[in-house]
């Protein structure tokens, strides 16, 4: 508790508050643009944070950017019905219906306040859970880390996307990209095809910018002229009608709490991410309304916005649990954050709480501050964010390409890296075109090298004997869970129904950014 108070002391310094406010504003500004989710927002803005000397300020800004991007994403989903990431799809269903009935303000308010409430609750949970898990994780051995990496990659791959084969191909491509460069153990060059520029490997930020920013724009570009996806912003007049009424409050607060209760634990699982908890929350609220004899789901029910938004926000704190304690990113956004840690030469994991305790607690405290700022800034400023939605699409996507190129160039100072990012972008374009999920690529690039190093370390210890690795009970259990998660999507039941709803919603165009 003392640690957390110290964290607040750090964050509440005026300069850090400025960073947090700046982060929330920029995050919302970019996140509100159609088709751009938090992962892409953070990737685009990553270069800015590299210029910080002190990682604390950078991470405070990062937390702000993330919350802003998430909130901006729900604004877009509600007003335009174009969710920028799969976590907002559930929100978009009822939220857009509310907006069309002239209740956009209430929908936006319930999502902002719900995010705030859920964010506070889940950050408290994070503060209490992180340290014990970190202490527990100190006992983990190389083989366990290997198994955990396998579990995270496999479960995300299995849960995302339409086909397992495509998901696994995405994963393998990511693993391959992660292999390029110098072998971490022996220093041999691998897959460099004789090109010196590849010796230092393909940086995670280059892959992220390439896949998300460039690949995304190419893909959207190829559809712009087909007449799909035409966007008709709602008239401003509709936005003026009403904040939340007393009835809205009384119908919202329970879904907020339930959403937080669903979001945090699901986010903390190795299968991480926000899509499962948001859809669980949506389904749950819908079922409850039906049982209570109400039929307003499908016509803009406020519970259908309040629950999923709360779950979305809470799951982010959940995702931070494995990220901070085990160094295990379980969503694309977490992967970008891990990349940011590595840029500051910080290795998330059990030792992080010992070596950089101040930074971790400042990060956790900045989540609280980010939540508060989000509420303070966003409810009054919504009119401005709505204006951002009116940016013409050719300019918007042209701008994204400019910023993406700039980001890669300013990171590396090397035009060859820009070409690599373009190459990855072309790959991303074809993957999107043929319904390959993108998140497994990112996890493969990030977790692949860690998985390989830990596996080889474990194999050296056991004299090259696989049996010895698998015979550790903990390792065995984790690997068994990985196999189970591969089979799970085929099992009928809750998950099957969830997936059914997802395809029903038909809004998974930019489906797996997070």
């Amino acid at each position, binding site marked *: 508790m003392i640690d957390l108070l110290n964290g607040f002391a750090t964050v509440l310094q005026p300069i850090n508050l400025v960073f947090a406010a700046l982060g929330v504003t920029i995050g919302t500004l970019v996140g509100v643009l159609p088709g751009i989710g938090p992962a892409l927002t953070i990737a685009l803005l990553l*270069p*800015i944070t590299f*210029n910080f000397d002190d990682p604390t300020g950078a991470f405070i800004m990062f937390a702000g950017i993330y919350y802003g991007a998430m909130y901006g994403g729900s604004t877009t989903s509600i007003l335009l019905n174009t969710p920028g990431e799969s976590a907002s799809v559930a929100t978009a269903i009822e939220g857009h219906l509310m907006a069309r009935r002239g209740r956009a303000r209430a929908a936006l308010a319930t999502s902002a306040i719900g995010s705030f409430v859920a964010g506070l609750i889940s950050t408290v949970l994070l503060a209490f859970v992180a340290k014990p898990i970190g202490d527990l994780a100190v006992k983990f051995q190389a083989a366990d880390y290997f198994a955990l990496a396998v579990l995270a990659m496999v479960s995300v791959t299995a849960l995302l996307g339409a*086909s397992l*084969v*495509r998901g*696994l*191909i995405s994963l*393998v*491509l990511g*693993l*391959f990209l992660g*292999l390029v460069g110098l*072998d971490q*153990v*022996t220093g*041999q*060059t*691998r*897959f460099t*095809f004789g090109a010196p520029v590849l010796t230092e490997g393909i940086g995670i930020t280059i892959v992220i910018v390439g896949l998300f920013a460039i690949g995304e*724009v*190419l*893909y959207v*570009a*190829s*559809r*712009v*002229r*087909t007449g799909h996806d035409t966007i008709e912003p709602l008239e401003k007049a509709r936005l003026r009608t009403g904040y939340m009424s007393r009835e809205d409050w009384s119908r919202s607060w329970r879904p907020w709490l339930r959403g937080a209760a669903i979001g945090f634990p699901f986010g903390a699982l190795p299968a991480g991410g926000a899509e499962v908890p948001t859809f669980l929350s949506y389904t749950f609220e819908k079922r409850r309304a039906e049982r209570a004899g109400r039929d307003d789901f499908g016509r803009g029910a406020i519970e259908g916005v309040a629950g999923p938004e709360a779950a979305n926000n809470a799951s982010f704190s959940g995702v931070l649990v494995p990220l901070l304690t085990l160094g295990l990113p379980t969503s694309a956004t977490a992967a970008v954050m891990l990349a940011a840690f590595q840029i500051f030469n910080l290795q998330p994991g059990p030792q992080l709480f010992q070596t950089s305790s101040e930074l971790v607690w400042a990060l956790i405290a900045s989540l609280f501050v980010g939540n508060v700022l989000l509420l303070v800034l966003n409810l009054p400023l919504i009119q401005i964010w709505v204006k951002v939605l009116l940016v*013409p*699409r*050719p*300019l918007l*996507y*042209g*701008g994204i*390409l*400019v*910023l993406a*190129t*700039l980001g890669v*160039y*300013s990171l590396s100072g090397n*035009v060859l890296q*820009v*070409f690599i990012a*373009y*190459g990855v*972008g*072309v*790959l991303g374009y*074809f993957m999107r*075109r*043929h319904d390959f999920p993108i998140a497994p690529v990112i996890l493969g690039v990030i977790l692949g090298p860690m998985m*390989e190093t830990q*596996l*080889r370390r474990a194999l*050296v210890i056991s004299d*090259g004997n696989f049996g010895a690795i698998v015979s550790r009970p903990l390792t065995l259990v984790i690997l068994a869970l990985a196999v189970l998660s591969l089979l799970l999507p085929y099992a009928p039941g809750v998950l099957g129904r969830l997936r059914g709803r997802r395809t029903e919603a038909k809004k998974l165009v930019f489906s797996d950014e997070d």
Partner: protein
Amino acid sequence: MTTAEVEQRTRPGELIFGLVLVALGVLALTQVWAIPGAEGWSVSGPRFVPLLVCAAWVVLAVIYTGQAARRMREPREGGFDRTALLLMVTLIGYAYVVIPLGYIISTAVSFVLTARILGSHRLVRDIVVAVLLASAVYFAFTELLSIRLPRGVLPL
């Protein structure tokens, strides 16, 4: 990903993507042998994991291609690769000229081209936005963040 290939894949695109994946996978697999290693094929050496990954790549790509061949359905939206191709050409051209011409000029020009390719017909607006955006980014990065961007031919 060559020009010819992009143009070809308008109809049986999935199948071709699958075949390209298989080909790239085989290429990657052959490169495993190019990894120098005193340990040879030891499971804890530098070749073992690459071998697994590349082998899995080839196997999965073959399965995918097989599925695609069986389906062989019409692509959902065909023939719009021209836009993506033009964008790609613009970007590559951009990366080539950004150092000699400088950041502002090359960025502004490629922004206008990009907007045009994406279907904008308001040239004046695009040019104004392009020049403002490129200059703003240039000065923000060089002056505020002290990141060096190519100055090029402009006397700045």
